[in-house]
């Protein structure tokens, strides 16, 4: 255990921006991720991560700032999502699938015509926290922190909109506005995070810690806190393990998150079986 903390201290000294960025993305995405999972927006999370990657590819192609490309593409995707209302015959998921397929293919096409080529595709998809620059960290600080604080500030109308749309409408909450508010914030956060962490890790942060937390907690507040703690822990462990064993950091973080979910799932199954055996014996 002491070795773990000593290695982490060394890492903080060696890669302060990378660790700062990792923890910042972990906290913000896992917080928003709880609402993403509960509102069944997981596929939208995946699509937004992919769309951000496509926007970054387009920015490379046109020599623009990657964050700008990601934001423009994601805001366009969110607007399309907003236009496809639930009353229409084409379900929202199908629209998102179309966006996912389009942006996945388009990002490969765009990168194939840039000087960087396939290495860039790899970087877009998998990212690399270790090479985070201080400029990247500044973008994250100026984008992720205020937007996450905004969601916290307006958590009540957002939550009521998501929990009971009809009741929220009757209570005078502008449900369409708050839905869009969340989608746009999610789009921008994913755009900022994807440039640094890559779409796979961002998607992982949005879904896995929240899923794990919701498996072990019966209260929303606790689930959010546990989700954040798990995301931060997997990030720190990812840095430690990749530093000591020379593995790519992002993938170690993603695998750690999935392993924690696996342990929780297995634990619940085993505990459930043991409990049923115990009760049947005691009868």
């Amino acid at each position, binding site marked *: 255990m002491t070795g773990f903390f000593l290695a982490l201290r060394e890492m903080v000294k060696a890669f302060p921006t990378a660790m700062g960025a990792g923890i910042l993305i972990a906290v913000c995405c896992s917080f928003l991720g709880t609402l993403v999972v509960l509102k069944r927006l997981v596929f939208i999370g995946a699509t937004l991560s992919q769309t951000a990657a496509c926007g970054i590819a387009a920015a490379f192609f046109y020599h623009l700032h990657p964050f700008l490309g990601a934001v423009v593409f994601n805001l366009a995707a969110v607007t399309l999502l907003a236009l496809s209302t639930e*009353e229409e015959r084409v379900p929202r998921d199908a629209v998102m699938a179309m966006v996912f397929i389009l942006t996945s293919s388009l990002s490969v096409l765009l990168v194939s015509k840039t000087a960087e080529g396939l290495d860039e595709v790899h970087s877009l998809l998998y990212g690399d926290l270790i090479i985070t620059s201080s400029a990247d960290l500044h973008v994250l600080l100026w984008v992720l922190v205020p937007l996450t604080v905004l969601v916290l500030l307006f958590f009540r109308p957002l939550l009521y909109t998501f929990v009971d749309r009809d*009741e929220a409408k009757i209570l005078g909450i502008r449900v369409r506005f708050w839905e869009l508010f969340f989608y746009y914030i999610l789009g921008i956060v994913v755009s900022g995070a994807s440039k640094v962490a890559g779409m796979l890790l961002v998607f992982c942060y949005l879904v896995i810690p929240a899923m794990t937390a919701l498996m072990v907690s019966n209260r929303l507040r606790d*689930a959010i806190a546990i989700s954040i703690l798990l995301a931060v822990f997997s990030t720190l462990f990812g840095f430690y393990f990749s530093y000591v064993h020379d593995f790519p950091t992002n993938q170690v973080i993603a695998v750690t998150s999935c392993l924690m979910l696996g342990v929780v799932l297995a634990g619940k199954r085993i505990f459930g079986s043991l409990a049923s055996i115990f009760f049947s014996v005691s009868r």
Partner: protein
Amino acid sequence: MIRCQNVTLGYGRDMVLENVTLEIPRGVFLPFIGPNGAGKTTLLRGILGLIKPLKGKIETPFQALPAGYVPQHKSVDPLFPLTVREIVAMGFYPRLGWWKKPRAQDKKLLEQALEELKLTPHAHKNYRDLSGGTKQKTLVARAFVSGADVFIMDEPTSELDETSEKEVFHHLAELVLKHQKTVLMAHHGLNQLIRSSATSEICLVNHGRVKKMKIQDFKGSPESLS
């Protein structure tokens, strides 16, 4: 006062109710009686503003003070891990808005609603783990604490046992008689409880039409509308 003037309600091109004209004064208990699929829920959702009329105009006082609503189908997303207390506290939103915390009197009102509906032992339980009847009572409690002047209830006792149904009707009658609140309630039939509650009129809904009548003029079946 709630006023519907030549209102046509429906979904897309399907019209459910046509040319409904209805005036509901303050302080009445008005049951909407009709068979399944007659359009009771559509009419109540139209009055609540959840669906826009295809034709005509509905005037309500809900801009100033939202209605207390109990839906027929559970509208609360069961995936969200919220307790009974947290669901009931949603009713405070018109008073608390985005940031305010519940005051002592709000908390007292909440405890009172839980107590009256025998929900206190379930207060800390997760909403999704409750039985259908307890979920329904939770939504009734949420409507009660909202401080609304008008309560709109869509078959609020469909999943309750006889005792709980009597309790809910007792509270509804009290709201009308003691506090001059308005209660609109959809129900598939006219049972003894409705006959004995604080109502002198009923609203029959059938075949896309709506008719208000004295309870003693009701011939026993919603078919009497035609």
